[in-house]
């Protein structure tokens, strides 16, 4: 087996262990390429059965429109239950990145929103697409990552994880975040998307899009809610990572196919999370967010 076969077999193994030993699993579907791969692996793990869990999208109302279209189409085509959660407090207060800042926007919509959704449905296992190569604190997180009843992660008190013997035991109210892509890299993900012909949101491919400059990043103007003092200009850009459109930087690129993306990746000089405003708020910020329950 080559390395993609081995990574695939490991991920399938992880899905099956988690489902066999949990009561109410859910897949956190964030619509990006990692979620696409995660969902593909879930389908493989349980075929010919459908994945025996719903998809949960924690929406912020600020995602790219193409992401939402892709999400709804994917769930419908695969015949999977899709739960969309929007933090009702955020809806009521109109929380947005322009007036409230990226940190508060992300905490209230995503971190608090996720906690609400997990509590409401009493999910005891939540699959996520996080990878260890994304960030230093993630490199030390377990594949089966224990969360207290308050959804907190304690990095200094993690369960040792040996062989492929995953500890899935929790007390009522506690839960486990399961990361089947822990050992994948961004390049593995794209090579696998290429090999398996997995559909991804078209925003990953280069196209001429309306952009403006914000804090040194190229921000795409996706709707008329963005305050503008200038006229957006058309540029040939794509996205390496997808989130809330006002917080996600585009990169100039001519890669219009997966194969061209893989080639671009091989010569890339910046990491994908550089395009995320929220990671740059403070050094060590990802670890802090994760302790609080962020994915």
């Amino acid at each position, binding site marked *: 087996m080559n390395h993609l076969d081995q990574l695939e077999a490991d991920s399938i193994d992880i899905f099956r262990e988690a489902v066999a030993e949990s009561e109410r699993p859910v897949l956190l579907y964030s619509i990006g390429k990692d979620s696409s791969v995660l969902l593909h692996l879930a389908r493989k793990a349980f075929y010919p059965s459908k994945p025996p869990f719903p998809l949960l999208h924690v929406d912020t109302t600020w995602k790219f429109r193409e992401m939402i279209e892709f999400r709804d189409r994917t769930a419908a085509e695969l015949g999977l239950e899709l739960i969309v959660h929007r933090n009702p407090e955020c809806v009521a207060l109109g929380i947005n990145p322009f007036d409230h800042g990226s940190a508060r926007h992300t905490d209230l919509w995503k971190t608090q929103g996720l906690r609400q959704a997990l509590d409401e449905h009493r999910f005891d296992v939540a699959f996520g697409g996080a990878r260890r190569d994304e960030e230093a604190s993630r490199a030390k997180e377990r594949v089966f990552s224990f969360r207290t009843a308050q959804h907190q992660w304690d990095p200094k008190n993690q369960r*040792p994880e040996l062989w492929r013997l995953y500890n899935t035991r929790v007390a009522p109210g506690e839960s486990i975040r399961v990361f089947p892509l822990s050992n994948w890299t961004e390049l593995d993900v794209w090579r696998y998307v290429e090999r398996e012909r997995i559909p991804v949101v078209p925003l990953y491919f280069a196209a001429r899009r309306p952009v403006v400059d914000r804090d040194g990043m190229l921000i795409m103007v996706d709707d008329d809610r963005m305050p503008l003092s200038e006229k957006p200009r058309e540029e040939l850009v794509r996205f390496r990572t997808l989130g809330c459109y006002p917080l996600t930087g585009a990169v100039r690129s001519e890669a219009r196919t997966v194969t061209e993306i893989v080639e671009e990746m091989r010569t890339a000089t910046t990491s994908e999370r550089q395009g995320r405003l929220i990671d740059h708020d403070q050094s060590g910020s990802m670890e802090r967010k994760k302790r609080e329950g962020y994915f």
Partner: protein
Amino acid sequence: MELQRSLLRFITCGSVDDGKSTLIGRLLYESKLLYADHLAALEADSRRVGTRGGELDFALLVDGLAAEREQGITIDVAYRFFATEARRFIVADTPGHEQYTRNMVTGASTADAAVILLDARKGVLSQTRRHARIVSLLGIRHVALAVNKLDLLDYSRELFDEVCAAFAEFAADLGFAEITCVPMSATEGVNVVGRSELTPWYDGPTLLQWLETVDAGSAPDGPSRFLVQWVNRPDASFRGFSGRVLRGTLRAGDAVCTGGRTSTVDRIVTMDGDLAAAPTGSSVTVVLADDVDASRGDVLAAAADPPGVADTFQAHLVWLNENGLLPGRQYLAKIGARTVGFTATKSLELNEIGVDKVHLDAPVPFESYRTNRDLGSFVVLDRLTNATVGAGMIDFALSPTNVRWQNLTVDKEARVARNGHRPCVVWLTGLSGAGKSTIADLVEKALHAEGRHTFLLDGDNVRHGLNSDLGFTDADRVENIRRIAEVAALMVDAGLIVLVSFISPFRAERALARELVGENEFCEVFVDTPLEVAEQRDPKGLYRKARRGELPNFTGIDSPYEPPENPEVRLDTTALSPEAAAEVVVAGLRTLGVC
């Protein structure tokens, strides 16, 4: 274009400050896996908290958690990835502090090869030997000895040869298939990726060359073993077993057996179509030709050569938790895809490694760890905290017992009918001097007067006879309670209401006692008396002795008491007289339907 690259998992280990994190940072840097923004962050961090006078400090790349950066040490296993044209690598970076042995064992458990670092100036230290032994114990057979910091010895060939010879001599009986010694400087990048002119006398591989070519050897051959993880039943027409090939190759048409039943592999199903054969490590779904009933945790095996099935083993154990292993205490073990009750016969402290006789409460299919890592390994879980507290590797099965359970005609129900009440264990727990014996005596008197069949097991009395060989260490306390619990369970089988009056300080043992009897046959009574009150009463003068240091391991003084979380009955003896407390217990038994 898809590269046919293989995957190599390896660990780096060595003593504190030998430069493990620096080496990994260097590998990432030299194989161009550091992105510009990572590098910019590294430059800033190196100036801020680095230990190399503002130069790039590669250790900061790997030491990701805030606490580690502050303390300048690596406190957990970190997994890092890089790739070359030849291979994709997963590195487990494991710390060198003695108290973190568990992290090394964790990292080694999934590794195919090991890089053991040492500081050339210090040579082979006891830590180096310990790490090499763990690498060997976990079944890793390919080892590179990275003799680091040679720049500080002017790349002396003599000193390098000396260190290599010392290591080879020590490691001769560790069963390594190969040991490759590399003269290195991780900070200067010598012989990490490219060959260096600073060591013209060295003609072996650089560390990266070794990693690219070492035999991954992760595919054990031999008879096929397929572990069932999940029974796949989308509808009435399909019944498959989803799981993983742990050894050998599984082929359509193969004769397989599980638990004494045999069948034939009809199909090997995947979403990409059926396979003719599934190699070791593949995750597939198997359909059998016959309607054989297999379930999660079963092993489908080559019918001609199935694995053994046993419940008692000699195993190597590694203890991973601050609370030590206690002999006789009930834990859980996860082995393959089963979780079963587990007991050991020895004590182990955190980071200790031992050989022990272990017992599972159900027989499981297994192979020795040397033969098959997946069917020979298990983790030990704590029943109450759910923590992963230990890890084990099976050496061999100890002769299975021939004692079978005898079915008897006069059973518990027959005795209930005769006695006119249900049996029950009434377990009184609390500090010494709480009033347990007094209350138990009053309860028994009341029940006896009603014509109930009772017996009172008193802690002090039993220690005169059955448990006269036991002292007061944690291990002896566990064994003490285990015996009492078994005796109480036998008396419940005999139809009695058994009053047990024991300090029984540990939740785990009380949980064990509860599990030995049926539902509604256990009534935990927490005789809740604050330490100050019990110490003030001190009917036997024990607290005074303990305070003078004459009674070590005395509960409440220098040995812990873990109060029950959900007792059936809680008695506040500061508010209730012994007589009133006894009435509360009897009322509790009526609520449980005992009498």
